[in-house]
C-alpha cells in the first residue's frame, strides 16, 4: 500500500508548512487529524459495507481468553482450543471460519469496547438510534449518519441499504436507497401474484413516460422525480441477475451479500460506496451458545462467499467491512444467556485493513467488577470516521458530529 492520506498529512505537518495547511484544511470542529478529502487515485470504486448484528451481539463474537472472562461465562465462553485465535488473548467465534484466512493475511482488525460514547443506552431502540444517528444530545430528531454520508455522494446509488429503512438511512439530501431486491429497487413484492407485479412494472413504465407535461414548477419536480425513479429502477434491474464467480448460500443473508456483491461489481455504473446489511436474532437472553452459533453460521456462509467473490473479481482491496451492534451483552445469566450491556467488540476487515487487536481486550478488573463491562476504548464514530476519511476519501466532519473531535487513530486503514 502506498502513502495514504494520514501519512501524507503527517509528512506535511512535520514540515514548516504543516500548521498553515492544517489551518487551511481543517474544518471548524478542530478535527485536526482530518482535512478535506483528497482525490487520491483508486478510491473511486471503494465501498464501505456496514454490517449490523442487530439485537446486541455477545462479546463471544470475539471471545476473550483470560480466566476472569471464562469464569464469568462458564457455559458460553470460548478458549483458544475451541475458537479461532487472533493471538493469545482473543479470537473470533468458531463459526466464523471465513475469517481464518483473513486473520492469516493480517487483514482483520478487532477493536475492543467500542460504544456510542456518553449517550450510550442499554435499550434496544435508544441504543440503535444512537448508533444510527450519532446524536449529540438525548433529544431531537436528526438524520442518520448513513444518510449524511450518502448526501456527500453524488451518485443516485451512492448509499444503499439492503436491510430496509431505518434511522441510519433516513434524511439528508440524498439518502441511501432502500433496496430489498435488485430487480425492484426496494419495491414491496405483490404477494401471491408475480404476474400482476410484472404487469404493473410494465404498465408503469409506459404510464409514467406518458404523463402530461408539467404546467408549473411543483408539477415538474414531481414528474421529473418519477421519471428518474423509473429510469433508476431500470438501471438497477440490469444487474439483478448479473453472473458472479461464486455461488452464495441460499439464505436470506446470502441473498443480501450476493446483492451487495452485484452492486459492487457494477462499478461506476452505479457508483455504490456505502452498503448497509443487517441480521437480527442476536438478543440472546437464553441459550446463547446455540443461538449465537446458529446466527453466526448463517453470517459466516454469506460472508465467506462475499469475500471469495470480491477476491475473484479483484475487488477485495476496494472493500472494507465493519460491524455494528447496538450494544454488547452482560456476563452469563442463569438461562445460559446474556443481557444488555454497553460497549462491545468491533471487527473491520478488507484488503487494505491493517489487522490485529487495535484496542486492548477487557481486563480482569474491568470484567470482574460488573455484570457488564462499563469501560470504553472509543466510539463507533471514531472508527467509522477513519474509514470514511482514510478509505473512502470523504470529510468525516460532514458525516459525524463533534463528539469525535478529539478522535485518536485506531490505525485500522
Amino acid at each position: 500500500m502506498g502513502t495514504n492520506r494520514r501519512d501524507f498529512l503527517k509528512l506535511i505537518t512535520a514540515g514548516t508548512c504543516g500548521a498553515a495547511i492544517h489551518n487551511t484544511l481543517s474544518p471548524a470542529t478542530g478535527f485536526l487529524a482530518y482535512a478535506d478529502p483528497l482525490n487520491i487515485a483508486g478510491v473511486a470504486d471503494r465501498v464501505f459495507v456496514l454490517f449490523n448484528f442487530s439485537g446486541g451481539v455477545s462479546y463471544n463474537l470475539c471471545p476473550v481468553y483470560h480466566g476472569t472472562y471464562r469464569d464469568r461465562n462458564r457455559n458460553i465462553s470460548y478458549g483458544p482450543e475451541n475458537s479461532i485465535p487472533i493471538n493469545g488473548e482473543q479470537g473470533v467465534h468458531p463459526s466464523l471460519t471465513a475469517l481464518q484466512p483473513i486473520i492469516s493475511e493480517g487483514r482483520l482488525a478487532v477493536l475492543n469496547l467500542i460504544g456510542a460514547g456518553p449517550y450510550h443506552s442499554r435499550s434496544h431502540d435508544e441504543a440503535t438510534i444512537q448508533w444510527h444517528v450519532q446524536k449529540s444530545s438525548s433529544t431531537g430528531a436528526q438524520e442518520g449518519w448513513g444518510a449524511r454520508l450518502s448526501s456527500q455522494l453524488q451518485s443516485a446509488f451512492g448509499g444503499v441499504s439492503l436491510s430496509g429503512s431505518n434511522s441510519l438511512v433516513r434524511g439528508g439530501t440524498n439518502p441511501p436507497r432502500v433496496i430489498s431486491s435488485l430487480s425492484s429497487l426496494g419495491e414491496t413484492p405483490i404477494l401471491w401474484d408475480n404476474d400482476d407485479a410484472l404487469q404493473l412494472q410494465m404498465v408503469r413504465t409506459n404510464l409514467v413516460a406518458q404523463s402530461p407535461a408539467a404546467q408549473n414548477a411543483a408539477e415538474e419536480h414531481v414528474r421529473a422525480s418519477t421519471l428518474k425513479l423509473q429510469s433508476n429502477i431500470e438501471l438497477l434491474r440490469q444487474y439483478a441477475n448479473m453472473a458472479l464467480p461464486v455461488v452464495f448460500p441460499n439464505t436470506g443473508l446470502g441473498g443480501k451479500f450476493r446483492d451487495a456483491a452485484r452492486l459492487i461489481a457494477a462499478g461506476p455504473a452505479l457508483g455504490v460506496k456505502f452498503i448497509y446489511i443487517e441480521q437480527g436474532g442476536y438478543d440472546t437472553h437464553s441459550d446463547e451458545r446455540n443461538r449465537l452459533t446458529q446466527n453466526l453460521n448463517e453470517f459466516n456462509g454469506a460472508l465467506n462467499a462475499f469475500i471469495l467473490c470480491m477476491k475473484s473479481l479483484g475487488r477485495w482491496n476496494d472493500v472494507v467491512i465493519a460491524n455494528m451492534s447496538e450494544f454488547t451483552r452482560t456476563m452469563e445469566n442463569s438461562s445460559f444467556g446474556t443481557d444488555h450491556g454497553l460497549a462491545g467488540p468491533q471487527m473491520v476487515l478488507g484488503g487494505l485493513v491493517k489487522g490485529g487487536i487495535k484496542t486492548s481486550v477487557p481486563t480482569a478488573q474491568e470484567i470482574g467488577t460488573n455484570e457488564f463491562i462499563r469501560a470504553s476504548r472509543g466510539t463507533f464514530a471514531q472508527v467509522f470516521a477513519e474509514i470514511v476519511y482514510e478509505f473512502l476519501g470523504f470529510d468525516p466532519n460532514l458525516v459525524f458530529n463533534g463528539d469525535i473531535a478529539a478522535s485518536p487513530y485506531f490505525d485500522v486503514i
Partner: protein
Amino acid sequence: MKLPTHFLILLLGTALIAPLSLAATRAAKSIVVSPDDIKKASVNVKIGKKAKLYEISCYRGTPGSTQRKSSKLYFTSYKNQEKVLVKGSAQLIKVKALRKAGGPACRDASGAPSPQPNPPPSPTEPPKPEDHASLEKYDGPFGLAEAQILYNRFGFGATPAQLQLAVNTGMDATVERLLSFIPEPDLAWQLPDISCDGWLYTDPAAGVNNRNCNQNNPNDMSRFGLRTSLAHQFIYSQNPFLQRFAFFLMDERLSVSHLAARDCERHAIKSYIDNVFKAAITGDYKQYMRDMNKDHLLHLRSLDGATNRGGVSANPNENYAREFWELGTVGPTGLNGLPVYSDIDIAQSALALTGWNITDTNINGNNVCVASWVPSFHSGGTKIIFGGTPYQSAITNDEELLEATFRHPRVAEDLAEDIWNEFLNPFAGANEVQSLANIIRSSGYNLLPVFRRVMTSKALYAQRSRNSIIKHPVDMLVGYVKTTGFPLYYRRTDEILSRLEQQLLNPPTVFGWNTKYLSGEQLQVEWWNVLVGYFMNVSIVDLKDDYGWSYYDRFIADLHASGKRTAGDVIDRVASDFGIKLEPAQRAELEQMMNYYLSSWDCPANCNGMPYRMERNLFDTDPSADESGYEWNGQRRIRLLITALLELPQARMK
C-alpha cells in the same frame, strides 16, 4: 470580555437601527433618485425552504431597494449592499438572491413596451387580477372537480358521500359545513383511548394490551398512541377542515417534535396538541401565538424557553424568540426583501420571554416535569423591539411582545403568504399577499373568516391553480382511505407515515416537512411500496369476510347497474374518484392492462420462448361474464388499476 447583547443595547440605545446596517460594518453606497426613475418589479426568490415573491426597485435596469429619508428617495443597489454585508450572513444570502433574480426582472421592467398601443385602464378602474390571483368570489360551476379541489386542499380529501353532498348543496353550503365545528362523540372517547396505550378497547386484537388510562398520572399516554390517534382523527373526523388546519399549524407555522419531550413531560405533547386544535376550532391566531408563548413542549422544552433566564450576567437564549418572529409571526423579511427585525431585536424579545422553569414534581407518586413561571428568572425592565422603525415598541414581558408584534403589518402578510402557498397556489405576488393580509387584519386575526374568503375565491378554482401544490404523504394516505373507504387498520397509520418520513408530531426541523423532499425520487418508491404492501397485499376475500368491504361494492356495482360495463368505464370512474386527469395514451395503456392478463404459466416453453404471454380477457362489470370468477379476477384488476393510477405523478398533485 464579551458583553451580553442586552447590555450593549442599553449602551447603544436604538439609534443604530436601520434595516441594512444590522449585519453591516459600514453603510452601503446609495444615490438620491427621482421616484419617476424607479420601476417596481416582482421576483420569486427561494431562500431556505420557502419561496417568496418580493417587490424590488429597479433603477435604470439595476435591482436594489429604496428608502425615503427627509423627503428624498435613496436607491441602494443590491450590488452595493452586498459589499457591506457580513460574509455568510442571512442578509447577504438574501440580497444576493434578490440581485440574481432581480437582474432580468429589472431589464424587463426597463424595456417594457410603450403603453401607447394598449393604454392602461383609467385610475378609477384598476386592472382586474387574473383568476388565479383573485380573491373575488368564484361564480363558476361547482361540480365534482371543484368539490375535490375544496376537500383536497382543506380536508385531506373526502369520502364519496361528502363529495356528493358538496355537489348537491353547492359551494357556499359546503364551505360553511367545513368551517363549522361538529361535536364528534365517537372520536371523543376513541382518541383518549388510543392515546394512552395505542389500542382501541373495542379492537378484538387489543386483549390485555388495552388498559384503562390512569387519570391520576398526567403522563399516562404513549407517543405511538398520540401519533396514531392524530392520524385516526385525520381520517375519520367529520370536521375535515379542522384537521387540515391543525396540520397546517403543526407543519407550516411553528413546528415541534414530540421527541423533545422527556418521558416525565409527555403530558406536554398532549397540551401542545390541545393548543393547536383549540386554535383550529376558534381560528384565533393571536390567541394561538399567546398559547405558544407559554407552551411547555414547543417553547419551554424544544426551543429552550425553560433555560432562557434573565439577570444581569446572563445571556438570553434566543431560540424561541427567533422562531416566534421568523415562523410564528412576522417572518424574517418584508415584501421589499429587507429584514423585518435585527439580531438586537431578537435579543430584546428573548429577554421579554424569560422567567420560565421546568422542575420535577411528584404527582400521585408519578414523576412529572411541570413548567412554572418564576419571577426571579424574568429579566425586568424595558426592552425595545423593532427599534428605529414605525413599529418600535417598549415592552416588558411576553404579552406585551405579542401585542407589539401583532401591531406590525408583517404578521398578516407572513400568514397570507403561507396560506396562499399551502391552500391556493404558489403564484401570489405582493399585491395578492397584501389583499389577503388586509382580510386577515380586518378579521382581527381570526382565520375562519379568512378561510371562508379563500375557499370561495376564484384563485382556488382557477385552472392555473389546479395541480399546483404537491400533496404531503399524509394527504396521500388519508386521501386514499377516504376515497376508497378501505378498512385500514388504525395501528398501521403510524408505520406507514414513518416509512414515508412524515411521522406525525415528529417533523424533521422547526420548519416542518419539506414536500419537495417527501415527493422526491427516494421517497416515491416508498409510496409505491405502501400502495402494494398495505393495500394491494390485503386479501380480497378477507376484506369482504372480515370487514364487509369489496372493490366490487365500492367501484363496480353501481356502474353495472347503470349499464356501464367496459374497462374504459371503470378507468374513468376510478380516475374521477381520485381526481386524476389521464392523458389519452395513459387511458389506452390502462385499458389494455384491464383487458389483457399477463401470464407466465407454462412459459417460456409454450410462450414462443418468452417469459410470459398476454391473454385477452375483456373486463366486464358483470360478475357472471368472467369465467374465472369475477370475485377474484375482476376485483384484482381494479386493485391493480388503483395502484397504477396512484403511482402517477398526477396523483401527487392537488
